[in-house]
């Protein structure tokens, strides 16, 4: 099931920052299950790769 071809899913906002973060995790997992590994990993890689670039820059020798 590809989310693009189906109804959008929506995230429930949390009452606190902690609840909001947990709600996002559940929302993200729902999204992962609605799309292919390639699609969600493309988005996740933006976070992973950009943080690595920052870390490499900060720790450059």
């Amino acid at each position, binding site marked *: 099931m*590809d989310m693009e071809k189906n109804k959008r899913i929506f995230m429930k906002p949390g009452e606190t920052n*902690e609840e909001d*973060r*947990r709600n*996002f*995790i*559940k929302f*993200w*997992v729902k999204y*992962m*299950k609605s*799309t*292919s*590994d*390639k699609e*969600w*990993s*493309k*988005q*996740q*890689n933006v*976070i*992973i*790769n*950009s*943080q*690595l670039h920052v*870390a*490499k820059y900060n*720790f*450059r*020798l």
Partner: protein
Amino acid sequence: MTLNYMELKNNKIILDRIPSELDIFAVEFLRILEKYTEYVVISGYVSILLGRTRSTEDIDVFIKPLSKEELSSLHKELKESNFWCLNAEKDNEIYSYLTDKLAIRFAKINTYAPNFEVKFPKDKLDEEAFSDFITVELSIGDIKISSLERHIAFKNYYLGSKKDEEDALHIEEYFKDKIDFSKINKYKLLIEERKRKHGYGKK
């Protein structure tokens, strides 16, 4: 186009993700490491590999104890593949850290991050990670990770920060139909017992 979804079956996860730079780094290091000893990747990178939306600068891995000679050969091959140890240069010193149950770190030469945090198991509870690991099959190679139940239990009851609890929640949410919650409780009791006996606290 075929759409592939990650699924756990018979202790194996076939993951059709686009490899991140962290995955490429992990596979390169692990292909060398596994020539010398058995390994199991634990902690944060397990959640990240399986889709958690965060990154990390270090990948934790347990290795089965190896001899000083084996460590020297491993270190030699790592250096030839442009890795360096962040803790020491001499094999003796690196080996003594490991046998003192301390973690040693390896990164690509002239960098500090990302890095691999390599350690021997502290006790029987850690050693058991080698008996129920999961193999994650990526397009660039396999990665052995700790069982999901062990991962969740250690995140929630041993490490216990907000970040760790969120890492556990991600795995619980995705694999809830596959997780043996009684196994998590068993680990919880063993972790509590370890804390009582040895006082091993947070990382």
